[in-house]
């Protein structure tokens, strides 16, 4: 199963044959079926468990999961990567934000099976050599957290924002972080933290 396709829906017939070849030799693993939809062949997984492989924070993780399992639940329940939080579970609050190929996504709204073959970065992946990332450091110093439950999602969303816009305006902040909610009310600290992190990234 090493060669999972890099993008969903981009399966060639050859990929399929390879995959189903493995399925035949390993009968306990339920492989995908293929349906013809509007003239094209579409791979159908499940309903049982399917083997999956992920690249998370640069490491390879494997699990057998039902196709209906979200990336968020896979991270939390299978790999004990509990930094991303489950709050609304339907793409409203941002507490589950992770990076998928560098772009912020709501992990509760991505199926695990779709995240295969893509670079997944969670909040756990931001520390380098035991040192907090400058954004994380800025969150601590500006008290941009209270209970901390929304914090990992905010930290990841801030990382994505600063990667894209190193010097965000207040409007950029609203656009970049408007999809994250905090119940304790830490937005003042978050604004200050982002400003500090942006300064630091500019070498200030």
């Amino acid at each position, binding site marked *: 199963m090493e060669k999972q396709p890099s993008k969903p829906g981009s399966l060639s017939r050859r990929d399929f044959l390879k995959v189903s070849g493995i399925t035949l030799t390993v009968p306990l693993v339920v492989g995908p079926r293929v349906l013809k939809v509007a003239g094209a062949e579409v791979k159908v997984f499940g309903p049982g468990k399917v083997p999956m492989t992920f690249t998370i924070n640069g490491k390879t993780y494997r699990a057998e999961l*039902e196709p*209906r*399992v979200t990336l968020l*639940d896979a991270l*939390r*329940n299978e790999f*004990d*990567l*509990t*930094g*991303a*939080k*489950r*709050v*609304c*579970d*339907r793409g*409203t*609050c941002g*507490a589950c934000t992770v990076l998928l190929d560098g772009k912020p996504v709501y992990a509760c709204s991505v199926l695990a099976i779709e995240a295969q073959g893509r670079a997944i970065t*969670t*909040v*756990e992946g*931001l*520390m380098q050599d035991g040192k*907090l990332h400058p954004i*994380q*450091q800025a*969150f*601590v*110093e500006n*008290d941009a*957290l*209270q*209970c*901390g*439950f*929304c*914090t*990992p999602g905010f*930290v990841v969303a801030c990382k994505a924002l600063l990667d894209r816009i190193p010097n965000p305006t207040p409007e950029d*902040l*609203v656009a970049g*972080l*408007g999809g*994250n*909610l*905090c*119940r*304790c*009310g*830490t*937005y*003042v*600290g*978050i*604004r200050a933290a982002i400003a500090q992190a942006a300064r630091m990234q500019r070498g200030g």
Partner: protein
Amino acid sequence: MAEREAVEMAEYKWPEPGQRRLIGKRVSRVDGPDKVSGRAKYTYDVNRPGMLAGKILHCPHARARIVRLDTSAAEKMPGVKAVLPLKKVGDEILWAGDEVVAVAAVDEPTAEDAIRAIVVEYEKLPHFVLDTDPKAAGERARPTAEQIEGDPDAAFREAEVVAEGLYGMSVITHCCLEPHGAVVEWEGENSVLVHISTQAVSGIAGQMAGPLGVPAGNIRVKQEHIGGGFGSKFGPDSWGIAAARLSKMAGGRPVKIMLERDAELMVAGARPSYYGRVRVGAKRDGTLIAWESETWGTGGIPPTSPLPLPYVLRIPNQRKRHIAIATNSGPARAWRAPLHPQACLLTMAAIDDLAAALRMDPLDLLLKNIELAGERADVYREELQIAAELMEWKKRWHPRGDPSPGPIKRGLGVSIHTWPGRGHACRCDLTIHPDGSVEVKLASQDLGTGTRTAIAIVVADTLGLPLEAVRVRIGDNQYPPAGGSGGSTTIGGVSSAARRAALNALDQFFARVAPLLNAAPDQLEAWDGRIRVKGDPSRSIAWEQACARLDGMPLTVRGENPGPGELTTAGAAGVQMADVSVDIETGIVRINKMVAVQDCGLIINMKAAESQCYGAMIMGISYALYEEKIMDPVTGRMLNPNMEFYKLAGLADIGELVVHMMTGEKYDRRGVIGLGEPPVVSPGAAISNAVANAIGVRVPFLPLTPERVLEALKKGGSHARV
């Protein structure tokens, strides 16, 4: 045990300003790095070996009787380990979302399938979920006894100006981002391990013991971090007990039940609504002399209690009536400063309307009557002046109704508030290890308020050590008991206990070290990592060296609150002002700026104290403008049990926020006073008043939605009458 009673010599006071290295300074929280890195483990994050996923089937009807309950299909499903009916045939359900059956299965998808396989038939019964009209409530409305002080009738006859208005605020929910829930496992026949999201680590075992039939001493309760509580997480709740029972049925395997978001919003936390018709009478010069109110409201079941009216200002001559309404809309729970935001709105809005009727600046009207605030009148006066400067009130205030052209109207509003917040009962153990490290243990919890950090600050400052030298362990009921974190009682309780423990430790320590320094114990002090002779820094010994004198045994002492000395008192006072813009074409209200001026006695951590105020203002903006538990009268269900339509304020909604904490000798002298509740009280009133000032009419109810703003504009509002 190296545990000894306090030596009576210790003087239990807070250090003088010059002796505080950490207390009152801006200290980053000690658990910040864990929280920003994802390492911090919350109850929701607890993954135990062999853990099962627990799910609950909730009743879809607001009121119903169960006539059939068949769980056999769920029981037979592969992967399902336990099915536990929580209700039986014949039971009556009183609100939508009530728990009917709990299941435990090998994973969440399987548990969800099992829930779907359960068959329940209900006989629907008539329900009632509306709270705005007590007349419609029939026999569900219960008037409480009328309260009279002085002679309100005579006072209203004497009054030269009377304002009358209708005000109120809807039921809102706590919406903790970490939902309620627990992970429970049986560690043998008679002992239970509970990880639970709770505001009361010490209180949980006692509440679970009865239902589980095990002694409380056999129930271990743990919680490293909690993702919000706001008053809603004091008990194990039926789902916590269900997790324990399911675990037992499954042979002791751990069971995790965390509420789904819809259940969290439907049944796990609601602040009651309050509405009221208020009359307030004054002399032409603004002297307040008469109050009359008829209030009603509900949080569901049980019904509400009367409000503390009039709020803060003790207006002479009052008549108050309250009607408690019971509705099928779920249970009410304490919500950050219970009853105060409601009482504050009803009072401050009525006084603001009176000011409009008097054609007076409401700030002047408050100042004129501030003696009615009683013992803290001076604090309010000082705070009102500071807030006015920070807001440039005198320069920018205009009489009601912004006369400037265009659809955007701007206005200012003011409100004052209070909260007791006396430190709760709390014990802590402080251990000095022979290697010099210091450990503090207590079964408290850090709600996000910075409890861990505050304890570390107090102990480090007292022992003359750096913050990192102190390891604070909380969140485990095996540690000395501490009160629940409600009512802003935590900071007073834990800081006082920690201070006493540290002073007791020093007493014992000084007695051992004194001979080394050729001094009497009471001549010593701990400063900058050393024990030294007061006034003679040349005679000193490093902390670690002194600890080596412990004969290889750790020294453990106890600190307790309440205890000797006045380390904590009660009664915080605060003032808030709001500057808003209202678009009278769309009805949209925007916050431009808010100012909070707050007293909380001696401040332990300035950074955390300010965060509390910012957070409270933001929560206040949220309930003032957006939040509402919307009930559908037809189905009796909540229409917005999610985060798309149950709206919380976001980063874009808060405007500029300014916090000013009162400090100085006068405030320090009062000791430590809790801060969680007070700053969340005023925002609703201040914002409502600012909107009235902007558009010239009162929008009677919060949240100030565009629809309500437009309706008030159309009707001319329910505004002051002369």
